[in-house]
């Protein structure tokens, strides 16, 4: 079976597993990827909410902080950010929108923006969001990230309004969240994996584990012919031939599959 078909099956299975509460199964695990427990079918907890709660209102609950971080660390230390490419339902959604984003990328304006030297710095936004909105604001002000999170809007707000008609009304954050949600939708349609690249705080937690994960994508530079096909197909926009355990790599395997010389490979311990 082709690698990308295997990945598709993996994503479908994880989407089902993520929503097992539809069958009455609710666990005490945090998801090792991005999904909202406000979804009526969610079977696990959003790790970001657990982290937010651990810092809420000048408090510090070490268990609520360590638990999601260790869970993410456990998955990350084995396969790095592979969960982004193989398991995350939001990654799966972006896989669907990726083809449109890929077409838009050929537009000269988009190409120009993509070539901006500042683009790599945008990737640090997710780390700022993680520290600023998931840790600092809950400690000093109030919950912030999960109150306006676009994924909560997508899998929580609207499904709840459909499943429980008339039972809920929008709260004061709804309008801000709606604006962010619209921007999120635009983003994933114009930039392939735009959310994963620039904004996902879970990706920010997982990214450093790419440096020590047991599974990685490696390039045999001696045999590489620099055709750059791998970089062209990379949904995360990585310069694949020159990467070494890149924190942005989601191990989707597109480069592995497309390399004409088979010099890009998955490598494991």
């Amino acid at each position, binding site marked *: 079976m082709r690698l990308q078909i295997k990945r598709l099956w993996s994503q479908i299975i994880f989407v089902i597993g993520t929503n097992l509460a539809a069958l009455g199964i609710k666990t005490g695990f945090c998801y090792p990827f991005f999904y909202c427990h*406000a979804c009526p079918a969610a079977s696990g907890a959003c790790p970001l*909410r657990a982290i937010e*709660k651990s810092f*809420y209102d000048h408090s510090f609950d070490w268990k609520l902080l360590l638990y999601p971080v260790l869970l993410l660390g456990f998955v990350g230390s084995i396969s790095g950010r592979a969960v982004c490419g193989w398991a995350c339902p939001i990654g799966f959604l972006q896989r669907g929108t990726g083809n449109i984003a890929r077409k838009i990328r050929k537009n000269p304006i988009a190409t120009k923006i993509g070539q901006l030297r500042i683009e790599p710095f945008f990737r640090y936004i997710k780390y700022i969001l993680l520290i600023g909105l998931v840790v600092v604001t809950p400690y000093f002000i109030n919950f912030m990230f999960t109150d306006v999170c676009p994924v*909560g809007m997508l899998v929580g707000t609207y499904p709840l309004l459909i499943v429980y008609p008339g*039972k*809920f*009304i929008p*709260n004061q954050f709804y309008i801000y969240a709606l604006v962010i949600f619209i921007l999120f939708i635009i983003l994933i349609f114009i930039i392939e994996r735009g959310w994963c690249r620039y904004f996902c705080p879970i990706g920010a937690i997982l990214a450093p584990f790419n440096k020590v994960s047991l599974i990685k994508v490696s390039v045999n530079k001696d045999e590489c012919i620099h055709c750059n096909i791998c970089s062209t197909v990379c949904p995360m926009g990585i310069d694949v031939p020159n990467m070494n355990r890149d924190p942005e790599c989601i191990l989707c395997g597109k480069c592995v599959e497309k390399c004409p010389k088979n010099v890009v490979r998955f490598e494991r311990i």
Partner: protein
Amino acid sequence: MEKILVIQVIVFLLIAGSLGGMLAFTDIYDDVQSGIVETICLSCAKLDTNLPVEFTFKTANGKPHPDFIIDILKTRGPILIQFGEKACAACEDMINNIIKPYFNLQFDKTISFDRDVEAHGLNFTYVYIYIDDPATPQERIDSYDVYDVEHIRGFPMFTIITIEYDHSGKIKPFFASLYGKFEPNDNYEKMTKTFTELIKNSEELWNRNLPGFEK
């Protein structure tokens, strides 16, 4: 090459061991299950519960909810309290024309009590607090000030209490108080409908949030 391998194995073992230890020796799994997964996070969903009257988490005098309320909420269900006093025509009117016939209850209106009620598909605990009954525990008498949100000190006062997600990530008692005969032109039918709707909504909230409230 070997150095990175050693680091990888150490990192993996440290994380796996710590995670396993947390799951085995702490109650974090249950905490996350009851406090996050099994409760509908309304702030995550950017929603509020739609209820016919104004519910609040904030007690009228800033004091915590009495223990007997917490005990009932943890074990029995949502609560309808009726506060009454002697020489109160409206109290008698409500008891005789709504509470007793509609909820199928028989009681002496001068004695405080609480009872689980099942009627018209509703399940709740009815708490009758007769202020002038000398046998009424002080905690129950004092609860009037906890729920008198309008600071009216009027009778009868009905307080419906359930549990709800409070946007700080915790499940807390959530209540509303209604005074006298509610609105100037309310008839018995309308008042009965209001009670039914409130209790039904409260039951839904209670069922939805109980796992997160028990712990």
